[in-house]
């Protein structure tokens, strides 16, 4: 199992002459936890946009799957999501108008075609799975409440819960710890670590303490390409990384 699940190779994208991503290459294995760090404008979010199909790269390939047989470039977001890539945004984006249960049920892995959804009737095991998941993210009490009534941290968990309900092979998580209390952070880190046991997880984070808590391999982005890769201690000793972060 030393093969990769996702392999991004030599990808570039330009916005109005500004090279947001410059011949970036990146790969991750099927059950790996990875943190991506980098200063503002390093291209972290754009990288996620490319993998999830929101932004189409000007050149390069994004290969996917056990055998790396599928090229994700040119597929739309929904298909990429169905292929097994889940994404959590920086700001919690849950459907505030709907209950926690409805949010999770919507995310629950199922046939996504309109007609199938229209005539879908949740089976007993679907409901049980959703309730289990709610308990896992600590929202069992809130399951009938509207998502909009939750606290900020609870929304973050709900969103992570929705990602898990999708049962993706790869999880892309953008700044999960932002705005959380210390206790919530610990819990979030544990959730992610546990998730990474069965799937690949990529976490983009600014907070070095949080990254340290994750205790995983770290990739440093700078100006749209990879600057360094390795353990957190390894990359923080790297002179280039120090220069970038402190500013020469």
């Amino acid at each position, binding site marked *: 199992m030393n093969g990769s699940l996702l392999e991004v190779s030599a990808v570039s994208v330009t916005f109005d002459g500004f090279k947001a991503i410059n011949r970036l290459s990146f790969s991750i294995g099927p059950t790996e936890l990875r943190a991506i760090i980098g200063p503002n404008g390093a291209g972290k979010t754009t990288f996620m946009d490319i993998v*999830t199909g*929101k932004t189409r790269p000007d050149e390069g390939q994004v290969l996917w799957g056990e055998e790396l047989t599928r090229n994700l470039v040119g597929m*739309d*977001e*929904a*298909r990429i*999501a*169905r292929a097994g890539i*889940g*994404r959590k*945004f920086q*700001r919690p*984006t849950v*459907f*505030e*108008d*709907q209950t926690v249960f*409805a*949010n999770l*049920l*919507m*995310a629950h892995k199922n046939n*996504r*075609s*309109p*007609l199938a*959804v*229209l005539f*879908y*009737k*949740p089976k007993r095991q679907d409901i049980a799975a959703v309730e289990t998941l709610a308990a896992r993210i600590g929202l069992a009490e809130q399951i009938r409440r*509207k998502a*909009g*009534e939750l606290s900020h941290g609870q929304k973050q968990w709900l969103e992570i819960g*929705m990602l898990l309900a*999708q049962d993706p092979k790869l999880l892309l998580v953008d700044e999960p710890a932002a705005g959380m209390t210390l206790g919530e952070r610990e819990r979030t880190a544990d959730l992610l670590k546990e998730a990474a046991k069965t799937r690949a997880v990529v976490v983009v984070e600014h907070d070095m303490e949080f990254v340290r808590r994750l205790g995983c391999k770290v990739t440093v982005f700078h100006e749209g390409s990879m600057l360094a890769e390795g353990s957190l201690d390894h990359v923080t000793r790297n002179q280039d990384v120090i220069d970038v972060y402190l500013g020469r």
Partner: protein
Amino acid sequence: MRDLFRNTPSLPVFIAVLVVFALGVTVLSEAYGLGVLSTSFVKTLGKTACLALVAIAMDLVWGYTGILSLGHFAFFGLGGYMIGMWLMYARTELIVLDSLAAAPLPPTPGEISDAIASQIFGVVGASDFPMVWMFAHSFWAQMALVVLVPGLLALVFGWLAFRSRVTGVYLSILTQAMTLALSLYLFQNDSGLRGNNGLSGLQNLPGADAIPQATISIWFFWASALALLLTYVVAAFVVSGTFGSVIRGIRDDEARVRFLGYPVEGFKLFVFVLTAVIAALGGALYYPQAGIINPAEIAPIASIYLAVWVAIGGRGRLYGAVIGACVVSLLSTWFTGGQAPDLNLGVYTVKWVDWWQVGLGLSFVLVTLFAPRGLGGLVDLVSHRLSPNRHGAPLGPDTGALREKEAEQ
């Protein structure tokens, strides 16, 4: 079915109210009861039921899915045209057969067809049947077209628009352009649908000359009420389950739904086509009661009024759309019909015929500004519904998303 009732508390209430109302109208009607209600008023009620029906469609597409379509009256009108073609053909055929019966030779099929064509198209200076009338002789074929033509138009238009991810006001303007293009096309004499004359005499059902209009009007009222009821049930079914969750998700945050793996375009297209078909069926019931359909009926303004009804009634709830359509269209009829007493302000006498439109426009502004939940919001006051208090924070990151105070169900 039980799920449906559980998920939609308004459904039993709605059914009960509608049944009681229909019975009441029947008892008060000329045809089957006391004769308190005039035939024309029964017709107005029947037409209003059809408008409520298309308002539900509008609510589905706008209030639930967030697509502000300014073109749904195009489908309504097309439905009317499709049924109107059969009504006009069949009735003209009877008239022609009647007049040819006295001829020295019995007419040939060709002569009958020519006579019908010159009767129908005389006003636009033509005497041949255009291609679009090829099925007009068959009731069932035209009924199929009632569904197929608007459905296909919605499918093609929706596919083009959603595929290229046109959203928000762009999409609204595009739908408006669609209905404008259609009405301009129909205004031409050589469109094959009698140009600005439209189709007329639709209130006369072929072969039903012996039946008084009073009776026909109550039949149509029943049919309209039944159609409204069925539409309500279908709409409740669509919005109650996970499908409802998904389309409301699309309304609040389309991108997020996409990242959940749902083909957003497919869902939008489904709702768009479904509502187009509902609107078309509404039109097919409406125009035989109205008696005439012409291209002015599908001018962009009509579709915008549809949005007005739904907004005033309260969007994002099915009964809101029904309330809005009924209240606004009945009030409009009352005020513009000259029945409302003039308001004497001393210096100026307000004639409602002139000023109703102004009042409607301004009240619409006020509703949008201060009562986004519309008249349906009154229901919440009664039911003391608990709703989250998040001080008006946005429900989603989309700029077009609903605010908290409009969020429903």
